[in-house]
């Protein structure tokens, strides 16, 4: 093999990208799926075109539960892809990897298409006519990436001098006919565009990012550029140096097109995803340490940092040392996507607001557009259902988890015992009385939660923190005695002292942390008025 070192370097760089630079990518993929080791899961995956690529990719992504293992498995996949094409194309595929909306099934399908084209061309007894059967099968297994297979087959046939001028046209007509027939017969509910552009290459099946056709096109053009000179019965493209240059230019242009998509590199989004990953792994100190260096200026980031501070007992002292987005910096309103409410859900879960956690986790689960279950969310939902005494419903979720690789042990323990430390904690902390959740009254709900269980210090700090975020000075002053009585602080926390100084000086005290927040909120409110 040529350039072994190049491929090794490529593999190491990919591992570094996924483990050191952007481990949140692997985490995000893993938390939006739940690979099950059951025959049903496999057959259900095959119910749609591209199902095998999907199944294989999810099988790989599941290892992301262990960050280094997930990074290793995916870097192996990308190295294989680079080996099957070339290192430059491997680098271009990083673009697809860096956008978490692209599913890993996309590079898997590409790798399978290239491998299948090689295998079919290298095995002499598979003539081009065999593609009459092979292509529909491949289309079903890997999706529209089978078009790349067809292109590579044409190129190899041309290289071998066995391609007739009418082959490509006939092949194209055949592909169109097959896709139309399969769509009509087996998945008519889906838009026809998805049948040609992919049903499961993207997290949102209705989206078809440009890299989904640019990258295969680059693979195809690279194969064309590398064509060796060979005589054939009809005029070879390679004989024309102009054509050769044109292919080279086209390859360069598509490469640039792929790289151009990096222009919107969402550094802040990655940082929020990183915070989410760290919260998931309960690496609270790292959340705080990263925020001390740089913190994205959005509400989700405030929520993650505040939760980390709360879990480390620092919320009362340090809250306003960090960016606070506003009254939504502790708990956010309900949103309909698979990410925004994760921080609030985690906060509810740790506060002991069982039903609110259950609601946010459930909505996050149903917001996964490609209908996958999430291992991370399923285990939380199961625990909340057990805390609520809905054993039969919890069992449904636990039986899913039981068939996964990494959630199995916890699920089996919960099935056997019906409880664990989290279930017991939630049952201890939750509300004793019923009332309707009302987001504008979140401070009162937090206060009541604390009254229900005065040992719930996190609820106390969230309650007082929420009053400060709302600017409800009167209630903050009125309930500050709770902090003294139940907070277990040796002295009044610095954050509360800072807020008191701000309040008592009517915002005039110099060097306070709460003062600038109040001014920011006041100016934001006044700018909203007509």
């Amino acid at each position, binding site marked *: 093999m040529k350039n072994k070192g190049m491929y090794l370097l490529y593999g190491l760089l990919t591992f570094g990208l996924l483990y050191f630079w952007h481990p949140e990518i692997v985490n995000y993929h893993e938390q939006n799926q739940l690979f099950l080791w*059951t*025959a*049903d899961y496999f057959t259900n995956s095959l119910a749609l075109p591209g199902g095998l690529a999907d199944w294989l990719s999810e099988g790989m992504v599941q290892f992301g539960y262990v960050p280094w293992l997930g990074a290793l498995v995916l870097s192996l996949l990308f190295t294989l892809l680079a080996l099957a094409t070339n290192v430059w194309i491997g680098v271009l595929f990083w673009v697809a990897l860096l956008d978490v909306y692209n599913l890993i099934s996309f590079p898997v399908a590409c790798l399978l298409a290239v491998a299948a084209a090689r295998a079919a061309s290298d095995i002499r007894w598979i003539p081009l006519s065999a593609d009459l059967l092979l292509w529909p099968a491949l289309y079903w297994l890997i999706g529209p990436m089978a078009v790349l297979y067809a292109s590579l087959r044409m190129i190899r046939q041309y290289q071998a001098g066995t391609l007739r001028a009418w082959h490509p046209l006939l092949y194209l007509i055949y592909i169109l006919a097959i896709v139309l027939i399969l769509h009509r017969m087996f*998945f*008519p*509910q*889906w*838009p*026809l565009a998805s049948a040609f552009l992919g049903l499961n290459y993207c997290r949102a*099946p*209705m989206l078809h990012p440009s890299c989904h056709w640019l990258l295969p096109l680059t693979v195809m053009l690279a194969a064309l550029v590398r064509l060796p000179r060979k005589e054939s019965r009809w005029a070879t493209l390679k004989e024309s140096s102009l054509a050769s240059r044109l292919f080279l230019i086209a390859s360069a242009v598509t490469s640039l097109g792929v790289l151009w998509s990096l222009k919107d590199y969402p550094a802040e989004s990655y940082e929020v995803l990183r915070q989410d990953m760290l919260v998931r792994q309960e690496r609270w100190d790292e959340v705080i340490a990263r925020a001390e260096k740089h913190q994205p200026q959005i509400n989700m980031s405030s929520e993650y940092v505040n939760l980390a501070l709360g879990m480390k007992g620092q919320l009362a002292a340090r809250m306003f040392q960090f960016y606070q987005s506003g009254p939504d910096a502790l708990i956010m309103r*309900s949103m*309909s996507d698979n990410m925004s409410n994760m921080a609030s859900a985690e906060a509810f879960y740790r506060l002991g*607001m*069982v*039903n*609110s956690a*259950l*609601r946010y986790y*459930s*909505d996050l*689960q*149903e*917001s996964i*557009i490609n*209908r996958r*279950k999430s291992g991370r969310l399923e285990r939380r939902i199961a625990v909340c259902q057990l*805390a*609520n*005494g*809905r054993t*039969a*419903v919890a*069992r*449904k979720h636990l*039986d899913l988890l039981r068939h996964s690789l990494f959630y199995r042990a916890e699920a089996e323990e919960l099935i056997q015992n019906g409880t664990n430390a989290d279930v017991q904690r939630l049952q201890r902390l*939750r*509300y*004793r*009385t*019923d*009332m*309707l*959740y*009302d987001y504008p009254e979140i401070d009162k*709900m937090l206060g009541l939660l604390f009254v229900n269980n005065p040992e719930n210090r996190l609820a106390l700090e969230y309650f007082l923190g929420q009053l400060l975020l709302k600017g409800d000075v009167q209630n903050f002053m009125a309930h500050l005695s709770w902090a003294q009585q139940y907070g277990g602080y040796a002295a009044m926390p610095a954050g509360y002292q800072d807020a008191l100084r701000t309040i008592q000086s009517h915002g005039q005290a110099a060097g306070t942390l709460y003062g600038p927040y109040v001014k920011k909120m006041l100016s934001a409110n006044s700018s909203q008025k007509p």
Partner: protein
Amino acid sequence: MNYKKLLIGPCLMAALAGCHHRPTDAALTDALPPIYPDYTDVTIPADIAPLDFNGAPEAEDLYVVIQGEKGGRLEVSGSPSREDSGPWADIDIEDWHRLTAQNVGADLTVTAYMRYQGRWTQYRSFPIHVSSQPLEDYGLTYRLIPPGYEVGGYIGIYQRDLHSFRQDPILTIDAVPQHCMNCHTALRADPSHFTSHIRGEKGGTLVQIDGHQRWLNTRTPESGSAGSYADWHPGGRYIAYSANVAGQHFFVGPYKPIEVYHRTSHLVVLDTQTDELLLDSLLMQPEVLPIFPAFSAKGNTLYYSVSRYCEMPLEYEKVKCSIVGMAFDAGDDTRRPRFGEQVDTLLNGERDDCSYVLVRPSYDGRWLMYTRCCRSNFPIAQRDADLWMMDLQTRRTWPLEAVNSSETESFHNWSSNSHWFVYASKVEDTMYTRLYLSSITDEGQATKPFLLPQKNPRKFYHALFDAYNVPDFTRQPVELDINEARKKFESGEREVVKAVWVK
């Protein structure tokens, strides 16, 4: 070496090993068999899909003998089930249909044997009653939806052949991405006429008559909202809709997760020939919320539920619906329809301190089935929701005790011959509604219901994370040109309806 023998021998042995015989040394027990679903003593129509059932999860094997009172007999070996579902009786569909057809009006006696730790137990035999009343419909239509909170998730309207296990999609979210859809409402189980509403930005009201698909905007300044809960006039020209704004709030305590309600609601009638939305002042008052319309068998009365306006969510406990009826004259080609001048209260929710909702008159004009719960105009979220019946001749009412449970029963509908009904219940696990079918005796009592049959039912239902919504019967398979529907949906072009005050 004869390789064929080498291959055939083990295959034959394996096949014989899998072919069970009726256990002869089984220990008798007087207990009923622990089967899922509970099909003991249920009443079924003759050509329903086989009532496959699972044995106890811990059972190693199952053997079932089904003997017809009028003759015929089936013996079924248990099929092994992966996971913890227990072995299941996979009854051959043709044999089952033959047996039930032979025993119309008689009983099938089912004897189940289960093997535990190598020893067989023979349970007490139980009957399945094959009704003399046929189920003439092709199947059911329903919506499958995750029973979540504010995010709808993957939603689809499906049809299920009741005589087999076949389920086909009619319209799913794949065709209308990120849009929630209301349920499909046909003309008394006749799918040649149906309507459904797609909510959201590109939403619209789909009305299909004899294969002609139209997408309307049924939201007018007068109605305030597009039509949602619907019922067809028996003549097939008019559709009554409730145009409402739904809301939901969530409890924080451990007892109940969600309260769903309608903030506002009006009733309107769409004339599908003139595209006029017919309005009546009695059905458009802001201080009352009429909802869930249903025409009487002859179409001369419009039944619905009505509650007084409450400030939501503050007064959610005060929502008490009554069931009322209003005369409806469908008119003719020269004369517009007319609504009655007064409202006849059949059941008074405020007086009885409960809520009467989802009125469904039988198509033969004999009965009125409805849901009763302690409050609310959205019964499926109420745990105490039960099915009740009214005799339309005497106005006597009674609960359908055979079908009610401590959990929610609601969203019922009649078969086209009014001998059978389907409803949704949360009895299994308090959360996921499942469909049950039951028949009505001449005295208006329900027979013991049976869960919608599925292959390997314990595994099927356990793995299903969707709830069944608003089931209805369909005489024939629903035919919807999905490509046309998608095209029209995506175009966003909606035919405009014109609101007309009738009185």
